[in-house]
């Protein structure tokens, strides 16, 4: 459609008048980024947003109350109990609002406690506590006390031995499987985190996405226009400037011979261009404990939520990146980055060969002149509520590990990149039309591998520290399960555990049938601690015997860790990688640090 002359005239006129202020803003932003200064505008902007969201939350609440008063709900009991809860929740800022008929969404006292404690710090963006507590009181449907146990060296000894009164009918009591249907730890980690309040973005949650009242709708519309008509153009401009800056500055830096000067220039250029880029999504990043920042060579290890992680971290420190080489825009950026300093980009063919990548990594780390290398050992993006299994590759190298915990505040826009649903472009667009991206980054004290510590144990130790600092749930699951089947070896492990449990029960109950497991048990004791799960209460024949027998000797035997048996099991070979769904790479614990770090943002 050809625009009418009048419209064309209007557009030209508008752009004439708009050009000077926009250009001014851009210049100011670039200048500030170069100097590493901030006017505190973004912080103020975020504070305003919080104020608006709170107002919106109150609106939803009052409307819900009014509606409830009008309607005679059929479920009287529910109403009563919810009224009580209502009182409690009244002065909470982060209350849950679902719909007009919402009663206590969260009836578990645990959840309430959490929220109460979160309440004291209200919804300040800067308050770490509220962020860290929030994820816990999520969207639980059921209470699960039987989590599937993947760990070998779990410190929790079997405290409760389920009475088994049926011989081979061990399926009974397998409610764990059903529970997994209703709720599980893994799939929920790859969906947008559920929020407590509506942040005026329709994408975040369908729960709040209902007509409440006209005031809120007007607010939403105003926000929509603001985001798309004001924020988006400005951010796109900034993004392009950032990109151009990156290309030009790296080209210039690349001219200089290797040495201290080049390093210093690269440092300055990288910080500047990432700061410009981070402004293009209004990133507000709070860095904590900067004394632990990695300054020289080593490996910085962080949890992974989105491709922006790199950009967020790079606004404060310069890192070398590792990843597969790409074509297109990403490839262009990769090549640009490589001009200015050493990064590791490996080819498709090399990706399979983990020893090659491992070697590259080792070489890089052993050179004191090179930058610390940034690795996301989870290998995939997770929705920032948990930390999943760390691939052991980067922990085998033997370099000092600088753990970094990152926690985003998803109230202003969810940074999680669901790469199986969204393309890279869609994701960028989504980020640019979100309110802001707020992130807390904690630098943690450097860690080194202990003598005779397995790489996997070391990886778990680092993971635990990161999870604790970032307020994330520490999971054993492999994030790769997001897009591939469970490898048979995990099933085999559950079977083994089942046998062990059966044997325990068997011994307790003094039945002869299953005691032939004795030999197996003896073999496994060195590798496993006792495991007791609801899903595997054992086949031990209890019909003839008491339910209450408990074998103290075994139940209290000290946990002995070890992964020997795991390594003996056949490795599952093929898994797909973050950015390229067709590409097979070595998987699982024995996988090297071959997952991709997306450059730039």
């Amino acid at each position, binding site marked *: 459609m050809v625009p009418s002359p009048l419209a064309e005239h209007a557009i030209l006129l508008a752009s004439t008048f708009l050009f000077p202020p926009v250009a001014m803003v851009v210049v100011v932003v670039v200048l500030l980024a170069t100097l590493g200064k901030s006017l505190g505008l973004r912080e103020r902007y975020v504070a305003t947003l919080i104020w608006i969201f709170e107002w919106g939350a109150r609106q939803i609440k009052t409307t819900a109350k009014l509606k409830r008063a009008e309607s005679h709900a059929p479920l009287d009991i529910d109403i009563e*109990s919810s009224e009580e809860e209502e009182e409690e929740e009244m002065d909470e800022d982060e209350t849950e609002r679902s719909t007009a008929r919402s009663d206590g969404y969260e009836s578990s006292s645990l959840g309430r406690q959490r929220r109460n404690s979160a309440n004291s710090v209200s919804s300040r963006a800067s308050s770490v506590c509220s962020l860290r507590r929030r994820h816990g009181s999520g969207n639980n449907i059921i209470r699960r006390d039987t989590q599937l146990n993947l760990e070998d060296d779990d410190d929790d000894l079997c405290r409760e031995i389920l009475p088994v009164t049926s011989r*081979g009918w061990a399926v*009974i009591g397998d409610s764990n499987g*059903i529970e997994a249907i209703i709720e599980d730890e893994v799939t929920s980690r790859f969906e947008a985190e559920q929020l407590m309040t509506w942040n005026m973005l329709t994408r975040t949650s369908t729960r709040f996405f209902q007509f409440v009242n006209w005031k809120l709708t007007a607010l939403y519309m105003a926000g929509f226009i603001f985001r798309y008509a004001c924020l988006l153009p400005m951010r796109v401009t900034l993004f392009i400037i950032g990109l151009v800056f990156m290309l030009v500055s790296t080209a210039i830096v690349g001219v200089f011979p290797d040495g201290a000067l080049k390093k210093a220039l690269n440092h300055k250029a990288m910080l500047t261009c990432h700061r410009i880029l981070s402004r293009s999504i209004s990133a507000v990043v709070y860095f904590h404990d900067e004394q632990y920042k990695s300054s020289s060579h080593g490996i910085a290890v962080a949890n992974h939520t989105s491709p922006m992680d790199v950009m967020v971290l790079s606004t404060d420190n310069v890192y070398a990146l590792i990843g597969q080489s790409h074509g297109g825009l990403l490839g262009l950026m990769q090549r640009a980055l490589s001009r200015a300093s050493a990064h590791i980009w490996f080819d498709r063919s090399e990706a399979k060969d983990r020893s090659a990548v491992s070697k590259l990594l080792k070489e890089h780390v052993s050179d004191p002149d090179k930058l610390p290398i940034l690795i996301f050992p989870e290998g995939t993006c997770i929705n920032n509520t948990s930390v999943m299994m760390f691939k052991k590759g980067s922990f085998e190298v033997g370099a000092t590990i600088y753990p970094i915990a990152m926690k985003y505040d998803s109230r202003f826009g969810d940074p999680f990149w669901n790469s199986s649903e969204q393309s890279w472009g869609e994701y960028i667009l989504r980020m640019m039309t979100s309110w802001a991206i707020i992130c807390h980054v904690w630098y943690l004290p450097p860690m080194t591998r202990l003598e005779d510590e397995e790489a996997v144990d070391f990886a778990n130790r680092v993971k635990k520290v990161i999870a604790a600092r970032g307020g994330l749930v520490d999971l054993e699951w492999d994030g790769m399960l997001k897009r591939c089947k469970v490898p048979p070896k995990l*099933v085999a492990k559950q079977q083994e555990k089942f*046998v062990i449990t059966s044997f325990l029960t068997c011994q307790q109950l003094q039945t002869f049938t299953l005691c032939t497991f004795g030999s197996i048990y003896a073999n496994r004791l060195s590798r496993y601690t006792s495991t007791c799960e609801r899903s595997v209460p054992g086949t031990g*024949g209890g019909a003839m015997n008491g339910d209450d027998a408990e074998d103290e000797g075994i139940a209290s035997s000290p946990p002995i860790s070890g992964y020997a048996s795991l390594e003996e099991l056949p490795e599952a070979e093929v898994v797909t990688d973050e950015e390229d769904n067709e590409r097979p790479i070595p998987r699982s614990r024995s996988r090297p640090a071959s997952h991709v770090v997306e450059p730039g943002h």
Partner: protein
Amino acid sequence: MGNSSSLMLRDEEIDNISKETEFNRNQIVRLYSRFLSLDKKGQGFLEREDLMNVPELAVNPLGDRIVDAFFTLAGKDDKHLNFRQFVQVLAYFQPIDKTKKNQLNDRSKKLKFAFMMYDLNRNGYITREEFKVILNSMVGANITADQLDKIADRTIEEADTDQDGKISFEEFCKAMEKTDIEDKMSIRFLN
């Protein structure tokens, strides 16, 4: 703000399901959002594969048996599972409330689910072979076939009161008499 209306349950649907299953509204709404997230292809129903995509279930040696029992109990058309059927089967796992008479979560329903897991060919009987298959998938390669046979023999022998070499549902219930099914096959749904 309307385009997600198809994602929301209508009030009368919730009421109906609530009457059938004794889940309250919030539980149903939450189960629905779970249903939607399991339904990755957005078809409006679940297939076996959708459930097996849950890693925690896939890792369960009996995962496919659970899924199978789930689908078998859901209805005649056992390829697809709609939300109503999904909730109905889950209702089996509600804890038993002594004060209320509920058809869906009583002891025999819970047992039926367990029975279905063993009854591979769904003929109403558990044979020795079926039992061995289940046992085998539970223990994997960790015990010998000989040991497996022994366990199977013994279990069947004990439960088979009418000596026909297979276990009917009645015999199964009897064998389970001393088992605390109420506790083991109940899930604590939050309000």
